[in-house]
């Protein structure tokens, strides 16, 4: 059965003649939903978002309506909205497309969201690697202001809101919402400990703050357009709406594709949508949700029960691409970055690459994360330099198991999941390599290798 894309967020992106300026956006019905929204009560909008069940697209998949409900409205402090445009999870490239090709969709989503939570100021925190994107957003905001869509008394509604673009300078941890907030305040981006520093209560400048991903805020626009119940009919229960999948690695047609959640399986994505693997190659593994997600191995079978009680029995290529199914097979939908590896991939080298990333990007506050990510990197680097010891395979797993759950932020989990899953699922490959290298060391006269 051929699978059809359902393009909601990417409806106009890449369409012939569609440009990223305000005129083009207005010609395509732009800002009509904002116009409609500011005539409703903010609580009604929040209610629609709640009913839609839309889950965050930044990584954790937390329901957006619920996040907004937690905002501390009694404190009397101003409420902030932060759009997380730090998109730095390796393998993810959807937010950049939205920002470059349809910035007004994001601005409209931000304005509607601000009105719904009654925020008067929004910041778009954009990563330093997107200087062009920052320029495009600033221009879009100016255009919106010139038409009274942003600024004082928007569209005569009596409601005023400002949006500012804040540029980062390249650090993965600035994607973590509390690290982002510290960075936005001008400090070293050390994530804050929760409790007490839940952004919804003690966020930016210790005020209640909603932090949402770029794609999530675009979905809000469509939720308000369609109504929460109607939106929830797209996708499957608990996994509503569409999902942008960013496919990279060993496929014929890497790129971004948008589907109703759960509408297609991983196999359909790779073979039907992305044109399959390169000639003569077979599938070895897939990381389904950005580099932090646990790797899935070709040939594995997954059995168990889903949240709704139904049981499943899937091979790798049968897994539906939605939040709950990917969680049920022990990985996650994460940020939507699908990284495909064929049989030419050396898994030890692949993990060495991923570990180097995490060791470099750990902010260094928590000992288990700082030291753990560093030692995992040292061990896999040693393995990739031909100096493994046989016990290194278990040592890797041992180090990884001592990080998660013992840290301030979820980076701890993010950095241990790759090692845990690679070593578990490709144990033979790791062991063979270690054995061969240890054997070579004892016969080539070099003796034991230094443990650095």
């Amino acid at each position, binding site marked *: 059965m051929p699978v059809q894309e359902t393009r909601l967020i990417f409806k106009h992106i890449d369409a012939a003649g569609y440009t990223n300026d305000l005129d083009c956006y207005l010609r395509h019905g732009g800002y009509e939903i904002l116009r409609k929204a500011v005539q409703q009560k903010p609580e009604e909008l929040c209610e629609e978002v709640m009913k839609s069940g839309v889950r965050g697209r930044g990584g954790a998949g937390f329901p957006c309506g619920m996040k907004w409900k937690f905002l501390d409205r009694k404190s009397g402090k101003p409420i902030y909205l932060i759009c997380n445009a730090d998109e*730095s999870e390796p393998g*993810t490239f959807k937010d950049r497309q939205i920002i470059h090709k349809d910035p007004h969709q994001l601005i409209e989503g931000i304005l509607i969201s601000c009105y719904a939570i009654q925020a008067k100021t929004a910041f778009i925190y954009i990563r330093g*690697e997107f200087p062009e994107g920052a320029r495009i957003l600033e221009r879009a905001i100016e255009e919106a202001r010139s038409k009274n869509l942003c600024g004082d008394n928007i569209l005569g509604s009596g409601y005023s809101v400002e949006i500012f673009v*804040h540029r980062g*300078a390249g650090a993965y941890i600035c994607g973590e919402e509390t690290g982002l907030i510290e960075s936005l305040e*001008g400090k070293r981006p050390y994530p804050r400990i929760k409790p007490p520093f839940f952004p919804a209560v003690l966020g930016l400048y210790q005020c209640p703050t909603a932090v949402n991903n770029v794609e999530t805020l675009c979905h809000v626009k469509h939720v308000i357009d369609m109504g929460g119940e109607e939106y929830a009919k797209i996708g499957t229960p608990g996994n509503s709406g569409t999902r942008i999948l960013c496919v990279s690695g060993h496929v014929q047609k*890497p790129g971004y594709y948008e589907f109703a959640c759960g509408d297609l399986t991983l196999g359909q994505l790779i073979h039907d949508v992305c044109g399959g693997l390169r000639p003569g190659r077979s599938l070895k593994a897939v990381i389904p949700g950005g580099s932090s997600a646990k790797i899935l191995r070709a040939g594995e079978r997954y059995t168990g029960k889903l949240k709704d009680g139904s049981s499943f029995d899937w091979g790798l290529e049968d897994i539906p691409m939605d939040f709950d199914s990917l969680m049920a097979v022990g990985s996650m939908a994460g940020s939507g970055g699908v990284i495909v590896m064929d049989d030419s991939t050396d898994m030890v080298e692949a993990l060495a*690459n991923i570990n180097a990333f995490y060791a*470099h990007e750990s902010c260094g506050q928590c000992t288990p994360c700082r030291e753990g990510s560093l030692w995992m990197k040292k061990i896999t680097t040693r393995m990739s330099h031909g100096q493994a010891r046989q016990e290194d395979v278990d040592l890797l797993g041992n180090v990884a198991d001592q990080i998660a759950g013992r840290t301030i932020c979820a980076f701890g989990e993010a950095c241990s999941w790759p090692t845990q899953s690679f070593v578990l699922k490709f144990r033979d490959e790791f062991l063979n390599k270690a054995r061969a290298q240890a054997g070579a060391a004892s016969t080539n006269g070099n003796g034991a290798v230094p443990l650095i």
Partner: protein
Amino acid sequence: MLSPAEQAALDAELPHYPARRALCIEALKIVQHHRGWISDEALRDVALALGMTPHEVDSVATFYNLLYRRPVGRHVLHLCDSVSCWVMGCDGICDHFRNRLGISFGETTPDGRFTLLPIPCLGDCDHAPSLMAGNRIHGNLTPEKLDRLLDELD
């Protein structure tokens, strides 16, 4: 002291924030833009302008991949080395840098023209391997494409 041009660029951003220090990254970028890199002196100038201690400013300056605390070449090339680019062969591009310019990550050519730095993920994974030069991203890199790019940059 910040130069008049640096001060003006900073002042343009100031009204957006309740506190001056929120401009720390921006101020560092401004001085880096004008002076090429962030020297200890530049750090002190930023600290003075924002009412922070040099130590606080340095804790920000040393954290980010795109802030340079050491002199760099005229063109800083950021080659993505994260997993999607690795899968698609960024190691080969690294080798080409070494062969053609004699530099590896973290090094600058003796003529001061190019500095090569790694960068984790440019969000261009569907065109891996990819690098950023100035404000532009160059994807689907091959040694030939890299040669053409290097020739274009003076």
